[in-house]
Each structure stands twice: as structure tokens, then as C-alpha cells.
């Protein structure tokens, strides 16, 4: 029997029992589609989150007060609280030749009001360089002026949402807005920025750092943003920041320096693990599909005993019978798997239309893996029924015994 004949015979046999065949196709298709969809979701989440951080710019360093325990080193001594970061710490960083600019950040929250309208807003205190480091775009006016960072100034820049809620259709530029118990003149409005690292920049009011310190009555910084001169300067910049702050904090290394690369790397690992996990869970459904194929093939064999008996009586070798049934299982699982991949991709496409922000995409390894595992499971679980068919005694099979 020739290869093409084996295939033709199997296809014909499958068409002869459409309900049974469709059932197996659907099981396999669902399994593969599940893998494709779930991994696309995981991968989409990974890309979304890492994309958020990538938008920060690749030369960015974030210096946080307090030693992150995950970076190792000595556990903090009992009762010792980390020293606060100050404006002097921030500008001391500029001594490093690896660092181009820094932006101290004070963060707090205060009621913002204009005339009768009032809302709670996050207040960021920083300097003119904040705009450059975070690539902020302005819709109107200009950003914080280049002034001595230790001097307060009664000016502010509004996030897009804050402006819309306080002013509605009216012009905001030049108006005086009240933050807590102080008044600030609006000199600029941010273009809509969207959420970035947990902070919705549309919901903030940005004021000079000294003004924020006065508003919240605290000299300490929430964090320091620094920009390395280039990507190559990044590691030098990290080392220099640690060293400079340690010198200033009497030899105590009590800050955490994060780079975008490190954050992205960590998130990347987390989301890859997540994607692998869901792929594994969905992979189980492929094995289930394989077992279903085995069951249905076993039923198929008892239903077509007479035909198998006849083939054997006509002189078909056991190997050929086995091959026929393996070809059936292989064809079914391959078709089902391809169908499932198609369905999964359609699902991904629909998901993209519904949530354009989420870059859904099934990773290539998941597509290939789902197809391979699906077809593999189908054939593997086809072996037992195929062997059983091959072992049938022709006379017994023909006489229905």
C-alpha cells in the first residue's frame, strides 16, 4: 500500500464517520486555541507592562530612599530608619560624569480648587529637568521655569484631567489655582500622558520642588530621577549614585537604585513565567484532547471491526493496519490543531480590536509548541487503538466476535 493510498483511505474513513471526526477535531482545536489565546494574553500583558517602563527612556535611573532587601547585603539593623533623600543629595549626583541631569521628586496629595470646583490631586514637586527626563509633552503654556530649585515659586503645571475637571471649557492658563492653603498660577497644561509606572500623569499638578516641600512641610524627597549620558554610562551612573549618596550618608548605603533595564528585566521574567504557566495549564487540555482521540479511536475500532477483519483477510499486514489508524489519528489531530491555531489567531485579532492598548500576540514558541504537542498527543494516543486494531484476528473480526 502506498503512502498516498494510506492517506486517501484514512481521509475516506474519517469522512465516513463525520460526527465522530468532528468531535475529535473540536477537542483538539479547543486545546490549541486555548494555548494560543492564553499565551497571547500573557505575552500581551508582558509587552504592555514592559512597554510602560520602556517609555520612561532607557537611560533613566530611579533612586529611592531605603535599601531594598532584594538587592542583598546586610539586613537593616533594628530600629535604624533610612535617611531621607534631600535636594542636596539630588544635585550631588551631578558630580558624576555619567549623569547628565537629575530631577528631585516630592510627591503628596492635596485638594486642588479653582473658584467653586475642587478635587483631590496628586502634587508632584520637581524641577524643569523633570520634563526632559520623563519626555512630557505640553498641550498649552510651558513647563516649570529654570529657577534655583531651593526657591519656591507660585506656579504650576496641570495634568490633562485635572485641567478638564477644574476648568471645563474655560481657559486655565494664567488662572490662580489653590493647592491646600497656597495659591499657584497655571503656566502650563500637560498633554494627555496616560498611566506610567503607577502614576496617572493626567491626574497630577506639578509645582516647583521647593514649593511642594513647603506645601507638605517636609524637606524629604519621594525619589530622585537621574538620566545617564548614554546607555553605556548607565552602569557607571548606578555605581556613582550609590557611592555619592553613601558618602553623603556617612558610609551607609541606604538607597535603592533602579534602572529601567533592571525593572524591565524583572517584569519580563515575571510575565514570561506567567505565560509559561498558562501555557502549561492550557497544554493539559491538549493532552485531554489526545485522550479523547484515543477513546474515540477505540470506539471507532470496535465499530469497524468488520472492515479491519476484511483488510486483514485481503492480506493487509498488521503494520499497514496500524499505519492506517495512526494516519487517521495524525490527520485528525493535525487538522484540529491547525484549526485551533486559526481560531486562536482570530480570537487574538478580535481581542486586539476590543483592547487596542493591550498588544496581544501569541509567542512563536507557543504556536509551534501547541501544534507539536497537539499532533504529538494525537498520534501518541492513537498508538494504542492502532495496535489493538492490528492485533484483531480476521475471522473473529469478520464474524463480529
Amino acid at each position, binding site marked *: 500500500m502506498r503512502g498516498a*493510498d494510506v492517506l486517501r483511505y484514512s481521509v475516506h474513513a474519517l469522512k465516513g464517520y463525520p460526527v465522530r471526526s468532528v468531535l475529535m477535531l473540536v477537542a483538539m482545536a479547543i486545546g490549541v486555541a486555548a494555548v494560543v489565546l492564553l499565551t497571547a494574553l500573557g505575552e500581551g500583558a508582558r509587552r504592555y507592562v514592559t512597554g510602560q517602563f520602556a517609555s520612561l527612556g532607557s537611560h533613566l535611573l530611579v533612586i529611592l530612599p531605603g535599601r531594598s532587601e532584594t538587592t542583598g547585603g546586610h539586613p537593616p539593623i533594628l530600629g535604624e530608619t533610612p535617611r531621607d533623600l534631600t535636594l542636596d543629595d539630588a544635585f550631588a549626583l551631578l558630580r558624576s560624569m555619567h549623569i547628565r541631569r537629575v530631577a528631585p521628586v516630592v510627591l503628596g496629595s492635596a485638594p486642588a480648587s479653582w473658584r467653586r470646583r475642587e478635587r483631590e490631586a496628586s502634587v508632584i514637586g520637581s524641577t524643569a529637568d523633570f520634563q526632559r527626563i520623563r519626555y512630557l509633552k505640553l498641550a498649552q503654556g510651558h513647563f516649570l521655569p529654570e529657577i534655583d530649585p531651593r526657591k519656591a515659586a507660585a506656579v504650576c503645571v496641570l495634568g490633562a484631567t485635572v485641567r478638564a475637571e477644574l476648568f471645563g471649557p474655560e481657559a486655565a492658563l494664567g488662572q490662580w489655582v489653590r493647592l491646600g492653603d497656597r495659591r499657584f498660577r497655571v503656566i502650563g497644561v500637560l498633554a494627555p500622558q496616560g498611566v506610567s509606572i503607577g502614576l496617572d500623569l493626567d491626574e497630577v499638578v506639578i509645582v516647583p520642588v521647593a514649593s511642594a516641600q513647603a506645601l507638605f512641610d517636609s524637606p524629604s524627597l519621594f525619589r530622585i530621577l537621574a538620566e545617564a549620558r548614554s546607555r553605556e554610562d548607565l552602569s557607571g551612573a548606578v555605581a556613582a549614585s550609590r557611592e555619592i549618596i553613601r558618602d553623603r550618608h556617612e558610609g551607609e548605603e541606604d538607597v535603592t537604585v533602579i534602572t529601567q533595564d533592571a525593572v524591565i528585566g524583572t517584569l519580563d521574567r515575571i510575565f514570561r513565567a506567567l505565560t509559561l504557566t498558562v501555557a502549561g495549564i492550557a497544554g493539559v487540555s491538549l493532552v485531554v484532547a489526545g485522550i479523547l482521540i484515543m477513546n474515540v479511536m477505540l470506539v471507532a475500532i470496535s465499530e469497524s471491526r468488520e472492515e479491519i477483519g476484511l483488510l486483514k*483477510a485481503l492480506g493487509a499486514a498488521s503494520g499497514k493496519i496500524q499505519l492506517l489508524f495512526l494516519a487517521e489519528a495524525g490527520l485528525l489531530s493535525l487538522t484540529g490543531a491547525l484549526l485551533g491555531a486559526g481560531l486562536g489567531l482570530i480570537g487574538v485579532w478580535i481581542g486586539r480590536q476590543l483592547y487596542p492598548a493591550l498588544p496581544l500576540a501569541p509567542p512563536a514558541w507557543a504556536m509551534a509548541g501547541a501544534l507539536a504537542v497537539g499532533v504529538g498527543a494525537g498520534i501518541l494516543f492513537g498508538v494504542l487503538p492502532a495496535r489493538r486494531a492490528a492485533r484483531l484476528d480476521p475471522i473473529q473480526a469478520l464474524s463480529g466476535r
Partner: protein
Amino acid sequence: MIRLQAIERRFAVGDEAVYALNGVSLNVEKGEYLSIMGPSGSGKSTLLHIIGLLDRPTAGQYWLAGKDVTGLADEERAQIRREKIGFVFQLFHLVPRLTAAGNVELPLTLAGLPREEREERVREILAAYGLSARARHVPSQLSGGERQRVAIARATVTRPEILLADEPTGNLDRGSGREVTGIDRVFGHP
């Protein structure tokens, strides 16, 4: 060509032993035409299954073309069936989902013949048996006689050296006691 020596076929039914064949010896030469008659249950089908290498005797010996085939392995028996033997089953055993042509083509497919040659030979033999108009019909659309002719066509399409045709006792013509339907008529032996 076919030589049977003291062939016995015993079936175990529960504790009881049923002898379908007991001490059958037989010699058939090449080109010989042999009818075996006997009442229902006398063991005709069983004998043909053994001759057709579909079943194994429980005792005795069988030589086919001078070769002892009694203890041959399954795969070798399958090969002899495929190459040398045509079998018309008592119940025909046509594959219900295949057309008349598809059923007749089956042994040629198993023999590994190329498609064009298979189709050519199927066409020829269906014409010879007056089945050309029924080629695309599945067995359930055929009459009993047509089914039998398809079964015969399938058994002969490979031009086997040995043709074994099994018919039940019920088909005996009452007047003459001779078989007048089926095989005999097809082969011109009244």
C-alpha cells in the same frame, strides 16, 4: 497445489470441544475446479478459512504449492493471502462506506499498484461482471446478486492462483441438488 493432511479444527465452547473439521485430507491440483458440498454446519466455511490461511488448524498439516504453511507466521500468511488467494466470503463482507468500485479496488491498493492501473483493472472487471452501471453504488444500493458479483470481482481482480468461494448450503437448487446460483454460474460450471 493444495494438500491437506489430517486437518482438524476444534473449537472450545465452554468445557465442550466442538469439531468443525476432523481428519480432513485433500489434494487439489493447479487448474482443478472443486466443489465441496455438505449440509449446513458441516464445516465448509471452516475448511475454506483454513485453506485461505485465515484460520489455523488445531491439528494436521497443510502444504501450499509444495511449501508447508501450517506453522507460518502471521505476516507471511498475510503476504500469501495478498498475492495468491482470492476469497469470496459467505457473507461477502463488502465495506459499506465504499462503492462497488472502491471495494473491488481494495486488494489492488493493498498490493501497492499505481492508481491508474488500479482504476483500469477495476473498470475492466466490473464490465466483465456486468457491473459497470453500478460502479458508483455503495453495497446498500445493490441487489443480493450484484453484491455477490462485486465480492467475486474483488476476489478475482488480483488474478490469484487460488480462488476460494464460500456459499451457504441454503443456495442449493432443490431439483438438481446442484448449486446453480453464484459462483458456478459465473464460471460456467452448471
